[in-house]
């Protein structure tokens, strides 16, 4: 039976590798009996801004994940309140992100067999 796995990333994409790693891990799950999804919360939500560019500091770019999101149709989620908290306005639609209210998180997490914070 296919297992639903959610990777939750909470660290900023500028200065940490975890946004890229979250997506890379999810993409690596295809081919197994696993249905992966990625959620960005807290400081990781700034990854969704069109204007976030870690590469401007010589770090790994994050937008390289977008073509794989499209290829694999990986669901991407973020928390509405965290977008507001970090003032993320210019959301890059290439992520195809869906937004969840914080008070819906408990039910949302319980839809998955595994929720991995990373």
């Amino acid at each position, binding site marked *: 039976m296919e297992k639903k796995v959610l990777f*939750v990333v*909470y660290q900023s994409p500028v200065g940490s590798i975890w946004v890229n790693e979250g997506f890379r891990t999810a993409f690596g799950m295809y081919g197994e009996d696993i249905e992966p999804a990625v959620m960005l*919360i*807290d*400081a990781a939500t700034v990854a969704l801004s069109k204007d976030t560019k870690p590469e401007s500091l010589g770090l790994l770019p994050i937008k390289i994940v977008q073509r794989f999101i499209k290829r694999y149709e990986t669901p991407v989620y973020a928390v509405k309140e965290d977008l507001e908290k970090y003032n993320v306005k210019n959301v890059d639609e290439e992520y195809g992100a869906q937004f969840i209210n914080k008070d819906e*998180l*408990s039910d949302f*997490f*319980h839809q*998955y*067999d*595994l*929720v*991995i*914070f990373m």
Partner: protein
Amino acid sequence: MALVLVKYGINHPVEKLKIESAKEGDSIVLIQDGVYWNLQDLSSLTKANVYILKEDFFARGYKEDEAKYSLIDYDSFVELIEKEEKFIG
């Protein structure tokens, strides 16, 4: 029901979220620095069953009578892992 694993302390950005996400009937296990959540009153955050990994609790200098929640050993922890269908951690 879900097993919720809390391994970082009270200042970590997401552990409170995990605890709040637990539902009644879920099992929260405090391990490693997660045992410091014993210093907080978790009843306002969750209705889930809370357990503390005994070895990690004692290793940080706490005594059995300081535990607000059930102390469990590794064998009981493994039983919980096997019992719970879902995992958040």
